[in-house]
């Protein structure tokens, strides 16, 4: 079995010309005690050639990380059915599984494989939804697995799954005094990392367009920052701003036409919007204090941003049309770099209390604030497109790592990097 996996990894390496080893290794650090128990049975396969990936294993890991499920360890399984006809529900009741996912893989002989799966309810002994089948190329096994995870998650929670999404992040590798900065994109589980840009000068603030096709980021060139946008599919890069002073914090508008950004060309940091097609700038804020870290409301009517106009940095909202500004955070010594959940219900900030920086969640309806994390030097929170989880950067034994916490604060896991500092995560939108 182990040999098969090794061989499968080698095949995968050849197929993708990419490291199949995950750069980020997931460690579950704590969990809720109200998780839904599910058994993801290894998918049946009778072919001679090894499979590129263990589909059920990927689904199991996805669901385990979701903050909703608790998966039954394979070692405890009493039987390994691959279709509903072969399921003995008694076996799963003994293991206290509420649901069972079974499936199988077969070689179509034309370079593709058929992956079929069924989700079963142990209590009712009935299938949830239909038996589904996917025909995929070997290079798409991980995509197929994340697709199945999304389906299971949605069928059992009513919320769209976010396992098929991706993350952007920045790594700093090598000599600390002169590192190489890399902007990378990977699957949401950290697998299949690809370097988008590599530079000896700093890269920060990656941001996705709402359709997931383009990204914006800040990169230094000749010791000065500029905002760049780039098409992921073609790699086509465009330098968008190069004003004197700050060129920072790009954030794509919901309609994809504008970027909110920060410039200090008129003396101090102000939030502007830039129409990408016409290059027209519109100033949103006008205050001698620091105004930065803009982020759009889901409907595009307002931009939330950080300002120290009240003394300490707090979160404010500016109305895009009237330019009226109102303060929206009041708890904590300071609040910075806010992001709203896709439904606009919760505001996630980096909050400082007693000298510690943590990710906090503010209910926009009730104003109630909950500190979600207890790690060290937390920053850059980014919310999954289904609003279920927040990925953020933190520090562990002097090294920058990414960590994830569920919006209820109950489930936490880390994605420590194999080497170098990892920072500035940006969770993608849905791709379709």
């Amino acid at each position, binding site marked *: 079995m182990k040999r098969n996996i090794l061989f499968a990894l080698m095949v995968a390496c050849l197929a993708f010309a990419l490291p199949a080893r995950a750069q980020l290794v997931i460690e579950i650090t704590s969990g809720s005690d109200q998780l839904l128990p599910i058994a993801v049975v290894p998918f049946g396969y009778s072919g001679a050639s090894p499979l590129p990936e263990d589909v059920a294993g990927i689904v199991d890991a996805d669901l385990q990380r979701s903050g909703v499920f608790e998966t039954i360890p394979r070692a405890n399984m009493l039987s390994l059915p691959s279709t509903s006809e072969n399921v003995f529900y008694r076996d799963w009741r003994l293991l206290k599984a509420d649901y069972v996912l079974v499936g199988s893989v077969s070689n179509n002989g034309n370079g593709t494989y058929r992956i079929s799966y069924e989700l079963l309810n142990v209590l009712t002994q009935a299938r949830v939804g239909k038996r589904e089948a996917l025909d995929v190329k070997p290079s798409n096994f991980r995509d197929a697995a994340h697709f199945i995870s999304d389906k299971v998650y949605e069928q059992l929670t009513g919320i769209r799954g976010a396992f098929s999404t991706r993350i952007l992040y920045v790594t700093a590798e090598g000599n600390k005094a002169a590192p190489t900065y890399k902007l990378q994109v990977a699957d949401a589980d950290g697998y299949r990392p690809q370097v988008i840009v590599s530079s000896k000068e700093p890269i920060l603030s990656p941001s996705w367009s709402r359709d997931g096709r383009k990204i914006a980021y800040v990169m230094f060139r000749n010791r*000065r920052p500029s905002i760049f946008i780039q098409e992921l599919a073609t790699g086509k890069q465009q330098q968008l701003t190069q004003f004197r002073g700050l060129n920072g914090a790009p954030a794509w508008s919901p309609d994809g036409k504008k970027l909110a950004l920060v410039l200090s060309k008129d003396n101090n940091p102000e939030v502007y919007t830039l129409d990408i097609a016409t290059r027209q700038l519109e100033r949103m804020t006008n205050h001698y204090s*620091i105004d*930065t870290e803009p982020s759009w409301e889901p409907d595009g009517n307002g931009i939330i941003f950080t300002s120290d106009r009240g003394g300490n940095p707090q979160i404010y909202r500016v109305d895009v049309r009237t330019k009226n500004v109102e303060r929206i955070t009041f708890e904590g010594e300071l609040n910075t770099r806010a992001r709203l959940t896709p439904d606009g219900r919760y505001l996630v900030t980096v909050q400082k209390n007693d000298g510690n920086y943590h990710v906090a969640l503010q209910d926009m309806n009730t104003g109630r604030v909950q500190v979600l994390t207890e790690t060290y030097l937390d920053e850059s929170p980014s919310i999954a497109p289904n609003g279920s989880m927040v990925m953020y950067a933190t520090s562990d034994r002097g090294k920058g790592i990414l960590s994830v916490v569920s919006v209820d604060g109950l489930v936490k896991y880390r994605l420590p990097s194999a080497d170098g500092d990892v920072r500035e995560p940006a969770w993608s939108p849905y791709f379709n």
Partner: protein
Amino acid sequence: MSVTKLGKFAVIGLSAAWLAGCSTTASDSDTSSMTSEGSEASSTDSTYAAGEDGSLNSVIVDDQAAAQTSADLLAGVATVFYFDFDKSVVRPEAREALAKHAQFLMENPSARIVLEGHADERGTREYNMALGERRAKAIMRYLTIQGVPAAQIETVSFGEEVPVAFGHDSSSWQLNRRVEVRYE
């Protein structure tokens, strides 16, 4: 400081003009005793004045020579200035070195500096970009008050992206909260 400096230039300018006038008067007059005494005095003074005057002129005419003289001014002068946490106030101990940078920049109008502001790792990255810029601007303001034209100064912030100390403690943070003066 700048007032004193301007005053000194004004005095030298005046004395040069006065000497010029004086020597004209002297050449016009024909008394040998006066000439000898006058020429002694004027030659010493004019040599001194010419030297000062020459360097004053050379600021405009001969950049290289001036740069050489002025470069000595910056020998051993600090180029990194530190700040308190979340503050952008120029510390008193920075003033002497900044005055020397100001003098150099005023004596070399073609010289350009970039003030590179930095923050420690605490707080969010883009906020720290703004904080680093605020520190660079504080140094810039100090220099412009000394009389340095703003056109000679550019401010750039690196936020927390380029630390020089890599610990996660107050001594490292102190070293990272800084503005570096870089001559272009």
